[in-house]
């Protein structure tokens, strides 16, 4: 008992000291987590940052944990502190703990990626060994590392059937556009055609109505009847004639909805595209739209985003990724696409593409 008592006291003191340091790191980093829009919180963060950046490397896992609670601005504050700490090449860097953090899917995507970057720069060989394990990772930035490795191996396979099998495995895992198209092109060379439209989940069947007037670009903010109520049987006054809902589908490889096909290459006009998307549960999702025209997007009557810009670059896949929600059952999705007055050859397009994914980028198909 005489021996045990001091040991117990020592252990309690050790736990207290640990808790004190942990809570003090938590307190130190808190202003970086509380950063808000419009520079709010900068004043406090300015005082906190040098102290956080002065911590020994052993506290990096706590800073990664703090990134779990920060917004993207706070993430950058913390990233800069980790970078400054890493400059010191402190031998106390707890690499195993950081790997543990990386492997824990419950940590936030950005903090896990930051953990991987730390491992890459301090222990590149260990980082390399971790990559194959990212093949099913919900974080796209990590998964793409594993996909790239597997794709590279598949390309080296000399047996055609084996190669096709490997490419198909890669395709099954890839989530990012550049990698999907790269595999698709490689398979095409081996005579296999991939249905990208289906694979990437483009919504291809719409009802459209138009053209409404967009003279002087005023139609963008003008509320035409489809914004108030969807009624496929209604007729409305359009730009020059009565307009009604008509179906428009696409066979385009990447799901491009070409509105010119419906109404001709006309200018200073507005069209609406509507679809009903059926889903089995309530879920936070990402609505991914591409358009070189001005556009607005409503989901279940809620305006999610509006972009008043014409022909600055081409229509791209996932050009805008907008957070939103699908509800269980039928979801109303309405897109307003505007064409302006420009007459140059590169301003003819009146188009968009659209798909829905979960928050990790995996495709969601309609249950229609």
């Amino acid at each position, binding site marked *: 008992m005489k021996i045990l008592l001091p040991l117990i006291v020592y252990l309690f003191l050790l736990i207290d000291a640990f808790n004190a340091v942990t809570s003090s790191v938590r307190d130190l980093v808190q202003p970086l987590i509380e950063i808000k829009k419009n520079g709010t919180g900068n004043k406090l963060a*300015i005082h906190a940052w040098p102290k956080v*950046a002065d911590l020994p490397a052993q506290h990096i896992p706590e800073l990664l944990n703090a990134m779990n609670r920060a917004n993207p*601005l706070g993430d950058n504050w913390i990233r800069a502190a980790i970078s400054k700490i890493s*400059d010191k090449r402190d031998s106390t860097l707890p690499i195993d703990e950081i790997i543990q953090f990386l492997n824990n899917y419950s940590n936030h995507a950005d903090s896990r990626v930051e953990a991987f970057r730390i491992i890459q720069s301090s222990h590149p060989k260990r980082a390399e060994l971790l990559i194959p394990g990212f093949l099913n990772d919900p974080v796209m930035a990590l998964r793409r590392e594993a996909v790239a490795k597997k794709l590279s191996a598949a390309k080296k396979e000399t047996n055609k059937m084996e190669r096709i099998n490997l490419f198909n495995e890669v395709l099954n895992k890839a989530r990012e556009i550049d990698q999907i198209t790269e595999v698709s092109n490689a398979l095409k060379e081996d005579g296999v055609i991939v249905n990208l439209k289906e694979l990437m989940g483009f919504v291809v069947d719409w009802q459209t109505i138009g053209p409404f007037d967009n003279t002087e670009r005023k139609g963008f903010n003008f509320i035409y009847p489809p914004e108030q109520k969807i009624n496929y049987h209604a007729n409305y006054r359009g730009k020059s004639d009565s307009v009604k809902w008509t179906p428009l589908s696409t066979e385009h490889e990447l799901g491009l909805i070409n509105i010119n096909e419906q109404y001709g290459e006309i200018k200073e006009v507005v069209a609406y595209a509507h679809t009903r998307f059926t889903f089995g549960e309530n879920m936070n999702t990402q609505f991914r739209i591409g358009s070189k025209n001005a556009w607005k997007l409503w989901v279940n009557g809620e305006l999610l985003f509006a972009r008043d*810009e014409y022909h600055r670059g081409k229509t*791209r896949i996932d050009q805008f990724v907008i957070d939103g929600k699908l509800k269980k059952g039928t979801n109303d999705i309405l897109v307003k696409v505007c064409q302006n007055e420009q007459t140059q050859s590169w301003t003819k397009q009146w188009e968009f593409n659209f798909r829905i994914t979960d928050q990790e980028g995996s495709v969601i198909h309609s249950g229609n």
Partner: protein
Amino acid sequence: MIKILILAFALLSLNSLHANWLNFRGNQSNGFSASKSLIDLNADQEGAWRAKLPGRGLSSPIIVGDKVFLSASSGVKQETLHIFCFSGSTGLTLWERKFRATGRTICHEKTSVAASTMTSDGSKVVAQFSSNDVFCLTLSGDLIWLRGLTYDFPNAANGLGMSSSPLIAKGVLLAQVENDAYSFSMGINMNNGETLWKKDRPRAANWSSPTLFGNGDNQTIILQSKEGISIVNPKSGKEMYNFSEGASTIPSSTPAGNILLVPSNGMTALEIQAGQEKAKKLWSDNKLGPGTGSPAISKDRFLVINKANVLTCARIETGEILWRMRIKGPSSGSPIATDSHLYFFNEEGLGQVIKINDKKGEVVASVDLEETILCTPAISGNGLYVRSDSFLWKFTN
């Protein structure tokens, strides 16, 4: 004659205070350096170096003492934003900070998310990216503050990318964020990153950069847009003078003493009394319109490269054309000049040194870096710095 001497003295005194190169196109945003001219561009010269970059960028280097600062972007979506500090003497990386873009990173293939040149007040540096992320750091790489202006205002973005370079005046950072969907300029407190003022700007894509005009208490900032130019008080954002005859949205205005060269109707020269709310148009000439790059000042002359790769030398005060010569283009960056030489890199990586006087221009040296170059070089002390797609280069005498 007296006016010319005053102009030359003003240019010399402003630039010879130190060998820094603090902004896009130099300390006075006019492409002029009082440094001794380099007469050769030899990558093998002792003291010359090149440093590998992790990603592309159209931004130019800036220089504070022996430190060279540069931004770059990398990643499949250019989502990683890099800020570098190199040793000017050795080319070694002194520090690097990496951030993640909080705004949109989609841009035209030719440009980059790292398109805006950094700026410095001599003790801090600021980098702005096409994602409208803004970072203020000490010269040692300590973060002072940051802002995400597209994070704050989600429609502040251009589908082709943004490129206006920020400036510091009177302790205020001026960030110009102008595009079709949502345009504004903002004055940010350099000490703490707080917004001092924000003013709506014409809703139109604008890649030109703000320009410093005047000095000391009379220092103002020129904002340029398709509608013209606006001279604003950096502390309040209050407009002091407006020129409404339109201006280019790519090349920027160029100050030369109390004269401002505006890329408007070709080129227009305005005489502006610093701190006063009036200006006098001196001349306007559509033969002096720039291509993508902005003019450079040298003594009482300015030099401008047009879309047809013709370099023209003209008098600042009168617009009188002194000589013209064809150079090897095409170019995206702006030329820079000393009293006696002009330096210019074309898109294919060909660097040209042109000896200039009142009578003619003559190519006296060239170097082929065999890399795409879309930015403007920088001069400081005995070094000329330029960034290509993969490297930052230093040339020296």
